[in-house]
């Protein structure tokens, strides 16, 4: 093995620095695993809303762990406490670790004060997925919405997060928008902090 001799030996496993690990996994392997996850959940439900909820729950667990890990790894055990801070943390840091790139855009909702949107031209989990016509507006991005909800909830910003397809002019494929609607208490706290 290459570099075996060079590695510093630590007597205690706790002394060893936390390695960043290998940054990438095979997209194919992930796509097959995710496909199986969706197929399994499909056998457990009898309507589409339920399927969406189950995918979101699966993502929530990932989000909670990702927050924990990234706060430790990138932020020296600190976490964002302000609304815009946590949103840009999700939009850039979380996205980069999970999908290898920053999300395409982060916008504030025009109609409601408490709504924010993260848009992605082609969401990684939807790369190979075609939704059948009879499933209507179902979006497998519900899994990613769950991840976002997990991160926000863990950081103390409870929110309702949903994934939607939004048609784009001049494009064959719609983009996916992750809609974040924060709880009232979050906005009240934010207003108090000024």
């Amino acid at each position: 093995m290459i570099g075996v001799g060079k590695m510093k030996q630590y007597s205690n496993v706790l002394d060893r620095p936390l390695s960043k690990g290998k940054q990438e996994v095979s997209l194919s392997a992930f796509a097959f695993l995710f496909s199986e996850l969706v197929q399994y959940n499909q056998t457990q439900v009898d309507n589409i809303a339920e399927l969406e909820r189950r995918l979101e729950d699966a993502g929530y667990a990932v989000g909670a762990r990702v927050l924990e890990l990234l706060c430790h790894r990138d932020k020296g055990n600190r976490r964002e406490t302000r609304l815009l801070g946590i949103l840009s943390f999700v939009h850039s840091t979380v996205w980069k670790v999970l999908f290898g790139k920053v999300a395409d855009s982060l916008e504030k909702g025009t109609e409601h004060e408490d709504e924010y949107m993260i848009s992605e031209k082609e969401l990684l989990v939807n790369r190979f997925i075609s939704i059948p016509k009879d499933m209507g507006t179902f979006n497998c991005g519900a899994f990613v919405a769950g991840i976002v909800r997990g991160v926000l909830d863990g950081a103390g910003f409870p929110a309702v997060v949903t994934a939607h397809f939004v048609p784009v002019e001049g494009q064959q494929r719609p983009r996916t928008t992750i809609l974040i609607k924060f709880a009232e208490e979050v906005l009240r706290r934010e207003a108090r902090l000024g």
Partner: protein
Amino acid sequence: MAAICSLYIINKSGGLIFYKDYGSTGRMDTNDSLRVASLWHSMHAISQQLSPVSGCTGIELLQADTFDLHCFQSLTGTKFFVVSEPGTQHMEGLLKHIYELYTDYVLKNPFYEMEMPIRCELFDINLTQAIQKDRVALLAR
């Protein structure tokens, strides 16, 4: 000007799971295309048995006066074949590419049931692009 007339994908038991025609020549109705698919499946199997050399994997190219038929069989027994104008080149490459698209956009789609007809929007979009690219490359040659 269409070099490719039609594309068929048949599952391992000979059922047609995908059919698309390009241009006006060699167009077929649903019943005929199903018949061609199962006929080809049987002929392919017979050719394996009749072959004088051992380890034959079946017909790869059928040349007729008015058309060529190129066939590619995947390891799992799914067969892809295109009917094209006589003497059209580089069909093996195209078939391999179509197989790649099939593994990506059909097999990784959780809503596709194995061995069933293919109805995947992304597969259609990417297939159309691949065929178009192939045509452009053909014109350039």
